[in-house]
């Protein structure tokens, strides 16, 4: 086919483009990710029995703020990276700031406790399952975010995949907060972060394979 004929073919019968198509895809992906992870926590893991009491304490909301900030940061970056020619933008500052804040808080707590208690504070009671649970909870959101990206045109596939994975991990962690009994900042800085880094790394690996167009 000649290029001129091909152009006529592409142009013929074009209809107006939905200006919000990109935002709609991510709304769907975030809803699917959050709702499925929350349902899985409620049905499979169970909501922590003292949730009503603990929800009245500031530390619970500090815990929520960590994955929430990462979720907003990752969403903002991944929505930009879904468009050709866009930089990651300021969302990455939010990601860095959230991790820095949790690590600063963790350091503060660790300095304050007795040296022989430090390892126990980091490990908490559930370190064996935390990262694994978050990774498993992130699977539906991961698929939804990759579905959203596949309909768009990311050009930096590894980075877009990693940010998509981080978004899925952050959504899973947010839901996991309803179950997880750990209230020590060092625990979040280690195991929540690890749980979110696993889907991030998987996203970076799968991005070039799944997102090409």
């Amino acid at each position, binding site marked *: 086919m000649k290029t001129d004929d091909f*152009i006529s073919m592409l142009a013929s019968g074009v*209809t107006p483009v939905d200006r919000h198509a990109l935002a709609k895809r991510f709304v769907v992906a975030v809803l699917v990710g959050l709702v499925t992870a929350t349902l899985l926590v409620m049905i499979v893991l169970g909501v922590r029995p003292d949730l009503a009491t603990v929800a009245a304490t500031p530390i619970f909301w500090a815990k929520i703020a960590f994955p929430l900030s990462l979720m907003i940061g990752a969403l903002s970056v991944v929505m930009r990276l879904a468009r050709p020619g866009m930089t990651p933008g300021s969302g990455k500052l939010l990601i860095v700031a959230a991790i820095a804040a949790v690590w600063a808080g963790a350091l503060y707590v660790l300095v304050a406790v007795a040296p022989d208690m430090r390892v126990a504070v980091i490990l908490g009671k559930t370190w064996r399952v935390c990262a694994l649970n978050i990774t498993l909870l992130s699977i539906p959101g991961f698929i939804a975010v990759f579905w959203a990206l596949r309909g768009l045109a990311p050009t930096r596939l590894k980075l877009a995949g990693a940010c998509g994975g981080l978004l899925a991990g952050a959504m899973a962690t947010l839901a996991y907060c309803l179950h997880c009994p750990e209230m020590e900042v060092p625990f979040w800085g280690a195991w929540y972060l690890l749980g979110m880094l696993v889907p991030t790394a998987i996203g970076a690996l799968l991005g070039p394979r799944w997102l090409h167009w």
Partner: protein
Amino acid sequence: MERTTHNDALRSREIHLQALFVAGLNGDERSYQVFLSELSGHVRGFLRTRLQRQPGEVEDLLQEVLLAVHNGRQTYRLDQPLTAWVFAITRYKLMDFFRGRSRHEVFNDSLDDEAELFAEPHLEPAQASRDLNKLLKQLPERQRLPIVHVKLEGLSVTQTAQMTGLSAVKIGVHRGLKALAQMIRGTR
């Protein structure tokens, strides 16, 4: 002085092409066709300088870029320079091409590249070696028929739906063109 005139020309081209493209996004077929025609001259000129050792590939890659521009047109943000958007698509396809060929040419990504995308157009089309008609024929019916009737014969969506009995004509066109892009990638 000469540099200023050159930059002015690039800027006015950006504004001109963006106006055509945005009209196309709003469903103006005529503007969209003019946009794609003018864009193809610029992208052809750009690809010719990048693919000096493979001149035979220029027209095929150009068609691939045009298809990618069309399939990805919903990702364009109005406040974004069109040059940057088209350049990122062209660069992506060019790098994909080099990777597919496992060539070791280094893609020289100097700062001037993006600006030079809309430099002097190259209007002389070459012969495309890949026949898109053949690839179109390999698409499943539910995608091929909508493309043939709506995009090649110029029938309306409603007429096509009546003729073929397919309910999702628009989706068929959309998915078919996406599938075509993946087939092109596969044949490289």
